[in-house]
C-alpha cells in the first residue's frame, strides 16, 4: 500500500514491526526483502512519487569549500527511489582488499569479511537489474569481451575486471507496483522524519517524529528502526536527535558524520595509442542477458600494497569535451547542448570556467564540419538511450585518431576531519541544515598520481602508447581540485566498527548502544573502494534484511509482549 502522509490525522501514532526511514535503493530493497517475513513494514519517504522543489529544499545546507564539493541539495533526491532517480547505473562490486586492514591506510579495515558481503552481490545484481553476477571480462559475454588495448598485459593492472550497467533502474518506478501490492508493506510518502525519540535510558528508540508536507505531524512506533537516508541525512538525523543522547544518537565517541568520503575521480591526460584503431576498444559489450559491460584497468592489490596506495581504476575516455581542439562533432554537440543536460551530468561534461564566444564558435564549427558523425551519434543516442528501457550507459565516441583521455575513479582514504556536521541554517521544520566539510589528503592525490605514472610506464614499456599530461595537469592535485568530490557518493559518515570507539554501527549495522536502531546505506562503509557504491549499498541492504528477518522472528514485538 502506498499512501500520502498528508492523509494521516495529526498526532496519530502509526505502528509497525519494522520502520524504515528513506525510500531509496537501500530502503526499498529492505522493505521488499523484509516483506517475506510477514511482519508489518512501514517505509517512510520524505518525497513523493515525483520530485518537488519544496521537498528538495529540505536538502539545502552549507559547504565549507564550494569549489571542492557540490551543494548538498545536488545529487540527492527526496523522491521515491531516492538517488536511483538520477543514477547512472554503474554496478561494480567492492574488492577483497577493500575489507582488509591495510597498514598503509589509517582507519582501514571492515569488521566483516569480503565473503559476508560477496554472497549478497548476486541478489543485489538482480535488484539493480545488472544481469548475472559475473564481473570477469572473459566470462561475462559469450566468447569473452574485447580487450581494451590489444596486446597490453600489464604487471600492475588487471584489465579483466568489468563494470556492468543497470538500466539504470529507478527503484521507485521499478518497484512501486510491488510495494503497492505487498500486503504487509505500507509506504508513506511526503513523510519527513524530524527526530528519533530515544527511551529515557537511551537503550532503544521508542518512536520517530514525522512531518508531512502539509505540516501535519504524527509519530511512528516500531520494534525496529532502520535509517536508510543516505550518507548526509543519516548523520544529520542522528546528530539532531540529541535530547537523550547528548551530542546525538550513536555519537558518544564523536564519530557520527566524520570520515566523510566521496571518490577522487575525473578525467586526465592524453593517451596516444600506437597501431591501428581496431587495436583499441573503449566501448561496451553486451552480455547474453542484455547488460552493457565495460572493461576497466584496475590497480592490482599487490601494487597498492607495495606503493602504499588506495584502490583505483582507469577507463579510456574520449578527449575533454570542453576543449574544441578535439575536432569531434558529437562532442561539440554535447557541449552546445549543455543547458539541456542535468546539473549532475553537465558538471563533468563541460568546462569549469565560463567558455568564451570563440570557444562556442569553434564547437559550432566542429558540429557542422563533422555533421555526418554528429547525425549518426544523435540517431544512436535517440534509439539506444532516449527510447530504450535498458539505456546505452554513456557517451562513447571513437576519436578520429587513437587519442584518448583517461577517466580515473579512485578510493578516498578515511579521514576523521572530513565530515558532515550541523550548520547554522534551519529547514522549514526547524531542523538544522547540514554543513559539508569535505577534505582530501596527500594519500588521495598520491593514489591518482602514482597509479597514473605506473600505467604510463607500463604502456610505454610494452609499446602500447604514450600517456602524457597537459601542462595544467602536471600537478595532479590541480586535477583533483578541479573535479572535486565525486558527486553522489556519500560514504563513511556512520561507519561500521568492531567497537563503539571505532564505529557508529556494529557488524550488523546496529547503532552501538541502541538496541533497535540500524543504519543501511553507504554511510556505514568504513572505506570507499574504487567501486561506485550503489551495488554494495543494495548487497548490504539484502544482508541487513536477512539479519533483521532473524531478529524479528526471534524477538517478540512490543505489541505481542504487551498483549
Amino acid at each position, binding site marked *: 500500500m502506498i499512501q500520502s502522509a498528508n492523509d494521516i490525522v495529526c498526532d496519530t501514532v502509526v505502528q509497525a514491526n519494522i520502520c524504515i526511514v528513506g525510500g531509496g535503493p537501500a530502503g526499498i530493497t529492505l522493505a521488499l526483502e523484509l516483506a517475506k517475513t510477514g511482519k508489518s513494514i512501514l517505509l517512510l519517504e520524505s518525497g513523493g512519487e515525483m520530485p518537488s522543489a519544496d521537498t528538495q529544499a529540505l536538502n539545502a545546507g552549507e559547504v565549507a569549500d564550494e569549489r571542492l564539493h557540490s551543494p548538498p541539495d545536488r545529487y540527492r533526491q527526496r523522491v521515491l527511489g531516492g538517488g536511483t532517480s538520477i543514477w547512472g547505473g554503474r554496478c561494480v562490486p567492492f574488492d577483497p582488499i577493500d575489507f582488509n586492514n591495510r597498514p598503509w591506510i589509517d582507519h582501514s579495515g571492515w569488521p566483516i569479511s569480503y565473503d559476508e558481503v560477496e554472497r549478497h552481490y548476486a541478489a543485489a545484481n538482480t535488484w539493480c*537489474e545488472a544481469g548475472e553476477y559475473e564481473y570477469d571480462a572473459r566470462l561475462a559475454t*559469450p566468447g569473452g569481451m574485447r580487450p581494451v588495448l590489444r596486446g597490453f598485459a600489464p604487471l600492475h593492472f588487471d584489465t579483466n575486471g568489468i563494470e556492468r550497467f543497470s*538500466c539504470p533502474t529507478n527503484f521507485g*518506478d*521499478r518497484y512501486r*507496483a*510491488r510495494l503497492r*501490492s505487498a*500486503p504487509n508493506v505500507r509506504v508513506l510518502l511526503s513523510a519527513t522524519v524530524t527526530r528519533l525519540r530515544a527511551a529515557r535510558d537511551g537503550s532503544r528508540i521508542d518512536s520517530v517524529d514525522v512531518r508531512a508536507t502539509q505540516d501535519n505531524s504524527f509519530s511512528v512506533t516500531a520494534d525496529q528502526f532502520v535509517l536508510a537516508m543516505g550518507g548526509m541525512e543519516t548523520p544529520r538525523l542522528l546528530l539532531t536527535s540529541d535530547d537523550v543522547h547528548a551530542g546525538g544518537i550513536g555519537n558518544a565517541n564523536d564519530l557520527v558524520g566524520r570520515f566523510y568520503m566521496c571518490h577522487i575521480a575525473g578525467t586526465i591526460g592524453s593517451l596516444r595509442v600506437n597501431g591501428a584503431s581496431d587495436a583499441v576498444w573503449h566501448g561496451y559489450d*553486451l*552480455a*547474453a*542477458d*542484455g547488460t552493457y559491460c565495460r572493461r576497466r584497468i584496475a590497480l592490482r592489490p599487490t601494487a597498492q600494497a607495495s606503493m602504499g596506495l588506495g584502490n583505483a581504476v582507469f577507463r579510456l575516455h574520449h578527449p575533454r569535451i570542453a576543449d574544441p581542439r578535439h575536432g569531434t562533432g558529437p562532442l561539440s554537440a554535447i557541449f552546445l547542448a549543455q543547458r539541456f543536460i542535468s546539473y549532475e551530468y553537465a558538471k563533468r561534461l563541460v568546462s569549469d570556467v565560463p567558455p568564451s564566444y570563440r570557444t562556442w564558435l569553434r564547437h559550432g564549427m566542429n558540429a557542422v564540419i563533422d555533421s555526418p558523425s554528429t547525425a549518426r551519434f544523435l540517431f544512436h543516442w535517440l534509439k539506444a538511450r532516449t*527510447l*530504450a*528501457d*535498458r539505456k546505452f550507459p554513456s557517451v562513447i565516441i571513437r576519436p578520429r585518431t587513437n587519442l584518448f583521455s583517461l577517466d580515473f575513479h579512485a578510493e578516498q582514504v578515511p579521514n576523521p576531519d572530513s565530515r558532515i556536521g550541523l550548520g547554522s541554517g534551519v529547514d522549514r521544520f526547524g531542523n538544522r541544515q547540514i554543513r559539508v566539510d569535505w577534505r582530501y589528503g596527500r594519500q588521495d592525490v598520491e593514489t591518482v598520481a602514482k597509479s597514473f605514472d605506473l600505467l604510463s610506464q607500463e604502456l610505454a614499456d610494452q609499446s602500447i602508447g604514450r600517456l602524457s599530461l597537459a601542462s595544467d595537469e602536471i600537478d595532479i592535485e590541480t586535477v583533483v581540485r578541479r573535479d572535486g568530490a565525486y558527486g553522489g557518493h556519500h560514504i563513511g559518515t556512520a561507519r561500521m566498527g568492531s567497537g563503539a570507539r571505532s564505529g557508529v554501527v556494529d557488524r550488523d549495522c546496529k547503532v552501538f548502544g541502541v538496541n533497535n536502531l540500524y543504519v543501511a546505506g553507504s554511510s556505514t562503509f568504513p572505506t570507499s573502494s574504487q567501486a561506485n557504491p550503489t551495488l554494495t549499498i543494495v548487497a548490504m541492504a539484502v544482508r541487513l534484511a536477512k539479519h533483521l528477518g532473524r531478529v524479528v522472528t526471534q524477538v517478540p514485538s512490543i505489541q505481542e509482549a504487551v498483549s
Partner: protein
Amino acid sequence: MPDSIDYSRKPVLILGASGFIGSRVAAALERSPVYRPIAASRRSMVRVDATNLQSVLGALRDVDCVINCVAGKESTMVRATQVLCEAARSLPPRRIVHLSSMAVYGAATGTVTEDHVPVAPISGYGRAKIACEEIVGRYVSDGGDAVILRPTCVFGPGSTQWTTRLARLLQAGRLGDLGTVGDGCCNLAFIDDLVAAIVSALDAPEISGRIFNISSPAALTWNQFLMAFGKALHATPIRRIPARMVKIETKLLAPFRRVGSKVIKAPWTVAITPSLTALFQQDIWVDSAAARSALWLAQTPPDQMIAAVIRDDRIKKERALS
C-alpha cells in the same frame, strides 16, 4: 499401435487424445504394463465425438477409467464435460480424471491452494473451466468417481501454447526482459510431471471428488524464466522490452496478428495478448502440496524443463528457422 492387444491391461479412454496433453498421456499409457490406452478424438483411429452422447456412451462401455483432455472452444469443453458425465451416470461407476486449469483462479494473487475462490476478472477460458468443474462436481455429488487436476502453464517439448509460442517470441526479440510487466510468478507444469500425475490419479485411493493443483516447485518470476529460456535458445542478447512496446503489442498489434494467424502460421502472426501480459504480471503462486502428497507429483526444476525442450527436435527446427 501394438501388434496385439493385451487385454489384461486396464482399458483407459482418453478423450481429446490428439491434443498435446492427450497424446502424451496416450504415449505414457502405451508404455505402461498396467493400463491400455484407448486414444479417442475426432481424428484418431478410435473416433469419438466428445460432444455427442451416443458416441461417448459407446466408447465408455468397455473402459474402467476416462481421462478428459478435451480442449478447444469454450462451448466445446463445457458440452464435452456435460456429455461425459451424463454418459458415465448411465453406466457402472468408473473414474473420470478431468483436466481443468489454473485459469479458474482468475486474477487471484498470493499463495493459492485448491480451495481458493476465483477472483474477477476471469477469462472466458477460465469461466468455461469453472463450468466444467461444476459439472464434474455435480457428478461426484451424485455418487460418481472423479478427480480434477488444475495444471498451471504446461511446458515441455511439443507444447505450442507455453513452449513454441514463447520460443518464437523470444527469438523474434518480442519477449525478453519485461521489467515490471514480467514480475509475476511463473507457474509452469512440466508435461512429464503432469502426465505422471494423471496416471497416478487413475487409481489413487481416497481421492474421489478432490481437486489438485499441478505446478513446478520453483518460485521464479516470468522475467527470470524468460531470460533463462532465451539464453538456452541462444536468443541473445536478451532484449529489454519497454512497457510502452508491450502496450503497443497488446492493444494495437495483437488483433492484426490474430487475423494474420488465420491465414499464415509465422512468428510475426504470434500475438502477445492482454491476457498473456496480465498473467506475466500476476503475483500468483499455485501451491501443489496436495498433489505431491496424494499423487506423488514429481516437480522437475525449471532448468531441467528447459534442457528437455532444447533437446527436442521441434525446437531445434524453430531455432534453425529463426
